[in-house]
């Protein structure tokens, strides 16, 4: 009977996931708010159902009482998140909230299945992040001086990156963060957000050549420090975010073009200067040929995805533990191996849907500052998602970034949840903006 449930579950999981994904795009075609709301509720039900089935399988594979308690705590967390968000902010963007919860639950399932104690740590961070993220929308909505803090954003960003470079601990050959007691903090995860605010506050008023130059120098400082710390992924994300924001702020195609040219030259130089950059490219070209050294990670990742196939091996039926850092950077391969490529494709679509929502918020803004913030955060999110998934499926060389909300890692988790909360704040702000305009129009009539 147990075997039957475990076998059957993988198909159920895929069906749930497909429906969830369909709903998240279907909702755009509904105008009726009632119908939209019912779809959102259905999405929550699907998430909880998915979560239940996965934990049932995990429990059946290894019946431990802790698993049940842990599951219970998670359900309480999800319900609390839904209720708190929707009562505190009734006009919130439900799609973004639902996606956040779905991605969190997917991550929790896989991390718990791989390493129970990491699952618990992840959950603790999640609760913390929820608490923080609940007040973020109020701050975004009410604190009007966010646009004026350009100096603070820039200085805090550069200084904290420098601090990591000087005093940070080394993990996997890269200087990523500090270890304080049991917690390892990666400032670069938070600097990404600060950087978006920095660029937005710098470019929303003045876009003359001089100001663009100053902003570019600060941005280049960010990227350089990250490259020297060997945090290539974060460097790339900041680079892309800056080009995108600069392009949209100025409307001039020359800037990103010049940026891309400079970036290409820099990448070429980095490839010839740094062996760790070469290693990534070698592994990407032929992971099997370089299996004993550079290619190991990517080869294991591809073994996992390929062996899993369309439908996956079934939860707890594969060997994702053979993939290095399966809970963080390579969690997408672990998910594909056990839940299948269909599941993986749906996951990609959900991430894409998040991005489209972010950009949607950006487009509707009339205020340039907030528009740029929404755009920057969206770009930051999608660039990281692309670098992560593209890297593990060997579409591009891997750069060692996490999959936002899904991967294990406290800093990444908290910063992404804060990012989502900021966008929620912007969404509300944009509705305020619209309401003001509407009100004034009516008054004048």
């Amino acid at each position: 009977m147990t075997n039957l449930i475990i076998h059957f579950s993988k198909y159920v999981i895929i069906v749930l996931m497909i429906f969830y994904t369909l709903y998240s795009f279907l909702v755009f075609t509904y105008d009726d708010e009632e119908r939209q709301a019912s779809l959102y509720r259905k999405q929550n039900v699907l998430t909880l159902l998915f979560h239940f089935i996965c934990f049932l399988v995990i429990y059946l594979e290894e019946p431990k009482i802790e698993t049940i308690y842990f599951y219970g705590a998670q359900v309480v967390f999800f319900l609390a998140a839904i209720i708190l968000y929707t009562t505190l902010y009734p006009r919130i963007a439900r799609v973004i909230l639902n996606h956040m919860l779905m991605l969190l639950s997917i991550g929790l399932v896989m991390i718990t299945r791989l390493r129970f104690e990491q699952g618990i740590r992840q959950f603790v961070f999640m609760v913390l992040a929820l608490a923080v993220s609940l007040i973020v929308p109020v701050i975004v909505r009410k604190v009007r001086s966010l646009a004026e803090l350009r100096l603070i954003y820039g200085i805090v960003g550069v200084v904290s990156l420098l601090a990591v470079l000087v005093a940070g601990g080394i993990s996997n050959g890269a200087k990523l963060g500090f270890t304080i007691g049991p917690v390892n903090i990666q400032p670069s995860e938070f600097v990404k957000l600060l950087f978006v605010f920095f660029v937005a506050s710098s470019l929303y008023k003045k876009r003359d050549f001089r100001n663009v130059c100053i902003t570019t120098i600060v941005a280049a400082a960010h990227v350089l420090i990250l490259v020297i710390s060997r945090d290539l992924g974060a460097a790339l994300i900041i680079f892309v975010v800056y080009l995108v924001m600069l392009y949209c702020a100025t409307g001039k195609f020359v800037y990103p073009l010049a940026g891309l040219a400079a970036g290409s030259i820099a990448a070429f130089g980095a490839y010839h200067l740094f062996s760790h950059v070469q290693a990534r490219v070698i592994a990407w070209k032929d992971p099997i040929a370089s299996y004993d050294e550079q290619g190991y990670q990517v080869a294991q990742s591809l073994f996992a995805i390929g062996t899993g196939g369309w439908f996956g091996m079934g939860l707890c039926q594969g060997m994702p533990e053979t993939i290095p850092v399966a809970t963080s950077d390579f969690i997408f391969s672990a998910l594909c191996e056990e839940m299948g490529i269909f599941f993986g494709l749906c996951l990609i679509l959900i991430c894409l849907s998040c991005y489209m929502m972010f950009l949607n918020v950006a487009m509707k803004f009339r205020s340039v500052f907030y528009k740029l913030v929404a755009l920057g955060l969206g770009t930051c999110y999608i660039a990281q998602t692309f670098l992560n998934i593209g890297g593990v499926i060997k579409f591009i060389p891997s750069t060692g970034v996490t999959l936002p909300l899904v991967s294990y890692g406290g800093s990444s988790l908290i910063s992404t949840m804060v990012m989502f909360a900021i966008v929620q704040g912007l969404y509300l702000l944009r509705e305020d903006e619209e309401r003001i305009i509407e009100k004034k129009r009516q008054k004048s009539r």
Partner: protein
Amino acid sequence: MKRNGKNPDDFHIEILDFNQDRDVYDGSLEENIINQVEEPSVIPAKPRPSRRRRAENLEDFQEEKLPPSPKEKARRKRNRQLTALTYGFVALFICMMAYLVYYNQVRARSFIRDPHNARLDSMAEHVVRGPVLDQNGHVLAETQTSDDGTMYRSYPYGSLFAHVVGYDSKGKAGLESAFNFELLTSHASFFEQIQNDLKSQKNPGDTVITSLDSDLQETAAAALGSSKGAVVAIEPDTGKILSMYSNPTFDPATVAANWDALTNDEDSALLNRVTQGAYAPGSTFKIVTALEYLRENGSDSNYAYDCNGSFTYSDTTIHCYNNTAHGMETLESSFANSCNASFVNIGLHLNASKYRDSAQELLFNRKLPCPFNAKKSRFDVDKNTGPGELMMTAMGQGNTQISPYHLALIGCAVANDGLLMKPYLVTEIQNDRQKTVKKYSPKSYRELMSSDEAAVLQRYMRSVVTSGTGQALNTSMYTAACKTGTAEYSSDKTKSHSLFVGYANAEHPDIVVAVVVENADQSGVSAVSIAKSLFDAYYSK
């Protein structure tokens, strides 16, 4: 344009600023358009009002400035970059998703077979390794359970299929390695799998059905006898491999037990000589030389050569076999007689770089299409090659090396009017109840020569049988066509390998055979006689 960040109305001001600032920016088209639309009311007639005042006026501004339609237009214009970006990232993600699908559909099957993939071993914990059958359903390999319940791999034909079917231990080889994944995958019915799960039994692995013919394989082994060498038979119009035998051979069931002895074996019994052997092609290479002559000269109608038994150029002298003087010859009779002098004469006048191109089109120095890892053949002549080496190469000596498998592929291309079909061994995968899981159908690989060129070579190879060195095959049972070869492999000119490539029937080729017999001078076993045994066996059914 400084502003007070703490002013609660600042938000509104910002909207206003956004529009007014537009005047300041040296602007893109987009901004100009906004200004055109907004012009009449944007610029206040009087001097710029105080911050406070402007904020109060906001509502009027909003309404009049932006009537719905132009407002929407302006917004779209403003969002042009954002829209482009969104589309860009969406396109990027679609590419990425397509790549994931492509990887799984096209690349994954061969990728995950890699022995480094630990997952394949774990599959054996849940699945009983499936059997391998020949085309008539004879079992070539299967898993059996001994009395004490342990499972072991059994090979009913012993050492006969050792190289092609391979072994399931010590890193695996042959089909056991190449189709490891399929053999360890179960497509038993859902219901059966559930039953097995409930009973905690392993599921039956899938059956791999090959195109191999055990009768032909037995014939090849018997004909080769104790001689070292290789025999391969392929259907030229489909690419199905019917037989692949390499001698000396070994017992695949005891590979693990005899591993040390096998790896230190002087005769390299583990080596699949069909795909991994490298031999001087000898006169079989005259197929390539003749083809190159035809390509450079258009036709053979102007070729004539008077053979007196040897050919000398500067200080190199090449002799015909047994110093036979063949007299006046056309290209066709030179080919049939396998006249070294005539072919050396041709070689000396060939364009070396075009010669190299032709050889490479025939897959020399190239990765061969093969179910296993096949050795690349070697062809060294290029534009820097001297005449001595060119002469040797033209008659199949020199540095050129070929595997018996590659020789057969060239035979297949000639027999199939120039088009090489992709060779394959496995025709079908079935589940434990003989239900087809997957069928493999013939696929063309590449046209190695034009059909006109193939037609000329077919004629030449036919005359080898009717009037040349292959007359042993001249029988009424079938119409064979072939090229024979004797390759010296050391400085001692009497030591030689015997080679053969040929097919039958000449009119409609059913089977291509390639044979290499090592040290044929000592054993007296010629490749052509082995080929004859195979053709006889094939057509006597």
